């Protein structure tokens, strides 16, 4: 069971996510943010519940609805907002924007704009962990519609066969852009498909942060123990359109209103109040703090400079001897950045496909079995 402290952390992080996305939506309306912009509002229980089940050294990646995945892992909100603004102080110096957040310091390996593109990449992260003998888990989120990409089938086959340490989370918000997943899927309950790869698959209520946390914890432990990948389907709902340009007319008002009553933030708030773990005033204060946190982030982005013109030539290729960019150090002068480093000298102990030689004993056994059966039949 989640402790009171942990529940309060989750409550705070869900509010941070919500307020951040609300501000992003407002800034979009003011044309401070442009291009595609996909908000996470409504789905916060998934990202927060899973994140609290992870170690700081675990890795996370997702699709293009990626603002809050790094945020809840500890990324700087101002630098994330600056990236949305296309400013030099952003995590990717304004080169990635909304769909391509990266914060390697906090183990966030990216937002990807091609539906399902992150699914094979996550298997590669898991492969590397196993190759070096690390006990790290990679979490890869994708939307319901990505489950119909061939990349998922190809990857799950390999991940299951090679027992790669990856938790695949399908954040099923029921619509791939404007198309109800059930309209285009022979098996709309995506977790059921895990059976095709003899892979563990489960479905949970993704609107309940505590449910997500408990299940994620169980699965992450199971994966870390070497049991292979899992497909976890978190059933959730986005309260806004697919992106900022989507009025979401393909859903009825009634449907949206009904789902809004399952708001994951209100749900956890009720649990905290019912358990007398916090007072209304305390919870309101957390909201005020996170609102202020996001206000500060917006102010930071507003004041951030545009990338210099000459930066157009950087980071397309790596030049010899060129170091990697550590964003918080570069932008904020942070001195506490712990950048992941990987060994260049080690022994690969993993035997991915152990040879099972046909021992003479095994052959004999089968031979005898056949003979016995014949005898039995006679």
């Amino acid at each position, binding site marked *: 069971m989640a402790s009171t402290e942990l529940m309060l952390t989750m409550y705070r992080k869900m509010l941070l996510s919500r307020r951040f996305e609300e501000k992003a939506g407002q800034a979009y309306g003011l044309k401070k943010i442009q291009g595609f912009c996909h908000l996470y509002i409504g789905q916060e229980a998934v990202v927060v519940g899973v994140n609290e089940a992870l170690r700081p050294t675990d*890795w996370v990646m997702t699709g293009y609805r990626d603002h809050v995945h790094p945020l809840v892992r500890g990324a700087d909100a101002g630098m994330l907002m600056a990236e949305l603004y296309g400013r030099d102080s952003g*995590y*990717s*110096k*304004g*080169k*990635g924007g909304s769909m*391509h957040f*990266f*914060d*390697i310091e906090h183990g966030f*390996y*990216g937002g*990807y*704009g*091609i539906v399902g*593109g992150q699914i*094979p*990449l*996550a298997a*590669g*992260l*898991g*492969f*590397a*962990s*196993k*190759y*070096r003998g690390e006990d790290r888990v990679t979490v890869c989120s994708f939307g319901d519609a990505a489950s119909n990409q*061939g*990349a998922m089938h*190809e*990857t799950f*086959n*390999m991940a299951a*066969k090679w027992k790669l340490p990856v938790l695949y989370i399908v954040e099923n918000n029921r619509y791939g852009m404007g198309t109800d997943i059930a309209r285009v899927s022979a098996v709309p309950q995506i977790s059921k498909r895990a059976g095709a790869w003899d892979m563990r698959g489960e479905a949970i209520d993704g609107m309940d942060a505590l449910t997500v946390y408990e299940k994620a914890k169980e699965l992450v432990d199971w994966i870390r123990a070497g049991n292979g990948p899992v497909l976890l389907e978190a059933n959730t709902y986005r309260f806004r359109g697919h992106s900022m340009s989507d009025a979401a007319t393909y859903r009825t008002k009634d449907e949206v209103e009904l789902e809004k009553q399952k708001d994951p933030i209100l749900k956890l708030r009720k649990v905290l109040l019912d358990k007398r773990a916090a007072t209304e005033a305390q919870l309101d204060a957390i909201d005020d703090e996170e609102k202020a946190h996001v206000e500060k982030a917006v102010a930071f982005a507003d004041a951030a400079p545009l990338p210099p013109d000459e930066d157009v030539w*950087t*980071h*397309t*290729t*790596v030049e*010899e001897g*060129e170091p*990697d*960019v*550590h*964003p918080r150090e570069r932008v904020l002068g942070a001195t506490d950045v712990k950048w*992941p480093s*990987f*060994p260049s*000298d*080690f*022994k*690969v102990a*993993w*035997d*991915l*496909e*152990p*040879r099972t030689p046909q021992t003479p004993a095994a052959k004999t056994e089968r031979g005898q079995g056949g003979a016995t059966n014949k005898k039995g039949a006679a």
Partner: protein
Amino acid sequence: MAEIAYREALNQALFEEMSRDPRVFLMGEEVARYDGAYKVSKGLLDKFGSARVVDAPISELGFGGLGVGAAMVGLRPVIEMMTWNFAILAMDQIVNSAAKLRHMSGGQLRCPIVFRGPNGAGGRLSSQHSQALEANYAHFPGLKVIAPGTPADAKGLLKSAIRDDNPVIFMEGELLYGVKGEVPDGEHVVPIGKADIKREGSDVTIVTWSRMLTAVVLPAAELLAQEGINVEVLDLRTIKPMDEEAIAASVKKTNRAVIVEEGWGYAGFGAHVADFISRQCFDDLDAPVGRVTGLDVNMAYAENLERLILPSAARVVEAVHQVLYR
């Protein structure tokens, strides 16, 4: 200096790089127990084990992307594509992930990965198995593209590709694997982005790469020499980044250029070379740049049609005559 086949030269490069760096692993279809569809990976499984020489399922997009992911976190994968025709299935991961990771992450990530396999015609394989696709990859910023034509260059450039911190497209010649050539003993590394003069001459520069070098251009040069025409053969070896300096220096000397490539002419890589020469060497040119390319049609199975479609020494001779106004 030993004379070895192109496939052995590649095998040596893999063996040496995997021996010196545990981060390097080879993954692809049939690379392990089968020793590679073209026997390039012969013996590597026994030496390095099943986590470093991995037989992948027939899932180019899947294992291509898996390799990219592994490269993002400190490994140096070599992903073998059974042919570049099949790699079209993996193009999303090569183009949308590998080529853009450094950029999208604002310099936080690097992606040191090699995608390698045979490119171009294999002989009587019809249209799906005979494509020369280097122009496609040369088009994308963020990728390096290599197409060696000799065993020595194959070995030296594969070693450089594996050590490079960028995604590298390494295109071998399907009909080159058995071709023998001298390869220097010991450590032999060829830098990426450097062209090589394979035959010195003064009358016409022929720019080429990969199989066209030995199959078409050098035989044509012999024929032309009999007429008293001395062509200079410049083997690009690396398609991207292109060695502009070497091209300009040679054209400055000969004042005439012909580009020979196996792939289609329409938007082929030779068009880029011709564009460079026409604009950067305009004052040096005594004739418009000539081109010899595969015909802009799908490859036929029939022997006579296939021969018509692919560039030949005769067509190179004709093109050289043309730029000499003969």
